[in-house]
């Protein structure tokens, strides 16, 4: 009976086209979500390999196999790919597309064609980003932040990379737009705002950031292009411009972009914990509203990236103050997750392990964020590898682990098959060990004064760098294990039931994998999403 579920699912039945074309022209949110997933995982591997190359170069002081210029290009492209192609679209475009409409009881998003269109814009941006590596005078070497005035002068392919970021931003905007309208308009009858599951809530807050922050970086990057083409002088101090203004505009987007990454990650964790603790989520409203609060306050804290850039003293303390405020709703979420588990009957399955790893990493990432957010300590560690460790703890340890958690949580729903639990647990452990070994030493050498983005260093930092490089290889091993496990299971895994984890949200009430239309009858919602008895 269950195998027939796969036969009748969105996998087998598409639109009027068959095979690959049926996927490429599909406006089904699940197919688009999966296409995003395959694309994003591919780019993650490219970015990961670039990261591995950097780590290998850094294993020993001195030049090993990368020249300084190549190293600059590698960290720039690593950043551009990981930020714009992987973590920003990551959870929203993949799992948001796959499950948000189902979780609110809809058959699709509000604008399915626009959804497909934004996928193609994403691919266009990806192609541009890849092209920037190979054409012209070499890969961009400005860092993913494109700081002026160097980015206005560097002879490398800055324009291509900048346009890639611009195009990708457009894709992000359209996804956000689509999600906001979908959540406003297509919730199932009876599903009031406060009966909506918390993953859609986090996507709603995220979508607003995507919508309202991305245009700012769009215009900034366009100005940068114009500046390079016409010597306009917006940001070049030789022509009267102000490079700090570029940083302002850049971070007005790029700091909220951090929340575009982490908010859906928090949403995923909020789904996973009640399912495996079999308890009603603690403080539903607090979690829902804290997503909105993070989005709102998070928009206004961009300056904490610029404490040493030469801002006025007033601006510095204002930004520091706001930064501390934004920590409050984040902490609320952590407290609520832990309270949800308290006295729960916890079943230890792979998604839960990943979720635990997320909370642990996110705590470290968040608390080191406060060290960076307070003025005095920031001056000491600004632009050191402490910062590198901090944001990798948030982006990778947070968003990355949440992505893995989501993948393992919804895998049976996506494919209708189950993976090997033992192997999944082991890969979680190995990835966690690899991750910690890779990034924790960077905190220490950062405090000791190791600057970021340097391809060479003093011998005193060697121990830290060497341990870190070993961690990178352990991490790689862990990913290999996950990859083997999931790819094999997607094809040959055991057929699973529609609700293997005993979840209560709507996606678990329909067959695995879902049918094209998700629901035969749109459900009528009468109670909250996490009413475990």
């Amino acid at each position, binding site marked *: 009976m269950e195998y027939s579920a796969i036969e009748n699912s969105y996998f087998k039945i598409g639109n009027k086209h068959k095979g690959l074309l049926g996927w490429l022209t599909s406006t089904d949110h699940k197919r688009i979500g999966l296409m995003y997933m395959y694309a994003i995982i591919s780019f993650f591997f490219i970015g990961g390999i670039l990261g591995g190359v950097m780590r290998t170069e850094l294993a020993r002081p001195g030049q090993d196999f990368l020249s300084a210029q190549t190293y600059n290009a590698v960290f720039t492209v690593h950043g551009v790919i990981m930020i714009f192609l992987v973590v920003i679209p990551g959870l929203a475009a993949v799992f948001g597309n796959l499950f948000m409409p189902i979780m609110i009881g809809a058959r699709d998003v509000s604008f399915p064609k626009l959804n497909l269109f934004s996928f193609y814009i994403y691919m266009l941006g990806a192609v541009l980003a890849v092209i920037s590596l190979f054409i012209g005078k070499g890969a961009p070497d400005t860092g993913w932040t494109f700081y002026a005035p160097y980015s206005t002068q560097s002879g490398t392919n800055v324009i291509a990379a900048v346009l890639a970021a611009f195009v990708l931003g457009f894709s992000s905007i359209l996804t956000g737009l689509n999600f906001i309208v979908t959540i406003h308009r297509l919730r199932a009858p009876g599903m009031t705002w406060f009966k909506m599951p918390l993953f859609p809530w986090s996507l709603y807050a995220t979508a607003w950031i995507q919508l309202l922050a991305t245009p700012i970086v769009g215009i900034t990057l366009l100005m940068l292009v114009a500046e390079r083409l016409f010597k306009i002088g917006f940001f070049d101090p030789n022509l009267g411009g102000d490079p700090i203004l570029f940083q302002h505009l850049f971070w007005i987007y790029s700091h909220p972009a951090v929340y575009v990454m982490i908010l859906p990650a928090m949403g995923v964790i909020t789904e996973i914990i009640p399912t495996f603790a079999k308890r009603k989520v603690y403080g539903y409203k607090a979690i829902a509203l804290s997503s909105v609060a993070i989005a709102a306050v998070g928009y206004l804290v961009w*300056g904490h990236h610029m404490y040493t850039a030469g801002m*006025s003293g007033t*601006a510095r303390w204002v930004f520091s103050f706001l930064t501390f405020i934004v920590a409050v709703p984040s902490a609320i979420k952590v407290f609520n997750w832990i309270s949800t588990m308290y006295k729960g009957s916890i079943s230890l399955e792979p998604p839960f392990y990943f979720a635990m790893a997320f909370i642990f990493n996110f705590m470290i990432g968040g608390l080191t964020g406060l060290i960076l957010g307070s003025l005095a300590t920031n001056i000491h560690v600004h632009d050191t590898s402490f910062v590198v460790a901090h944001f990798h703890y948030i982006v990778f340890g947070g968003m990355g682990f949440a992505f893995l958690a989501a993948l393992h949580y919804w895998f049976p729903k996506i494919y209708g098959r189950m993976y090997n639990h033992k192997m999944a647990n082991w890969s979680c452990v190995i990835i966690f060990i690899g991750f910690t070994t890779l990034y924790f030493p960077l905190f220490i050498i950062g405090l000791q004064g190791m600057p970021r983005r340097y391809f060479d260093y003093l011998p005193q930092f060697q121990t830290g760098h060497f341990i870190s490089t070993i961690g990178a290889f352990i991490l790689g091993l862990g990913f290999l294990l996950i990859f083997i496990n999931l790819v094999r299971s997607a094809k040959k895994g055991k057929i699973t039931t529609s609700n293997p984890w005993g979840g209560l949200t709507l996606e678990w009430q329909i067959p695995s994998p879902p049918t094209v239309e998700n629901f035969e009858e749109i459900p009528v919602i009468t109670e909250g999403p996490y009413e475990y008895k």
Partner: protein
Amino acid sequence: MSNGKHHITDYKTYAWVLVILLFFTALTVFVSWFDFKALTIAVALIIASIKVTIVLTYFMHLKYDYLVFRLMVSMVFLLIALVFVITFFDYLFR
């Protein structure tokens, strides 16, 4: 279908709105001949804001449309204003 709620605005209303907008345009050109020192830009921006509010309210139907649109629009303008204020915490105190 809740596609209803369609208020039909008179031609006359629109014409009056245009007259008012043209009046404010003339006003803003007129006051630009005088020098209010530091207040010059404030005056220009206040007049522009009035015009924008009129366009939003009548031409863009916010007055007759759903509350949620009004809330969203106000939120966006508030946000833009906040970003300006916070940016100028830097530039005014350097």
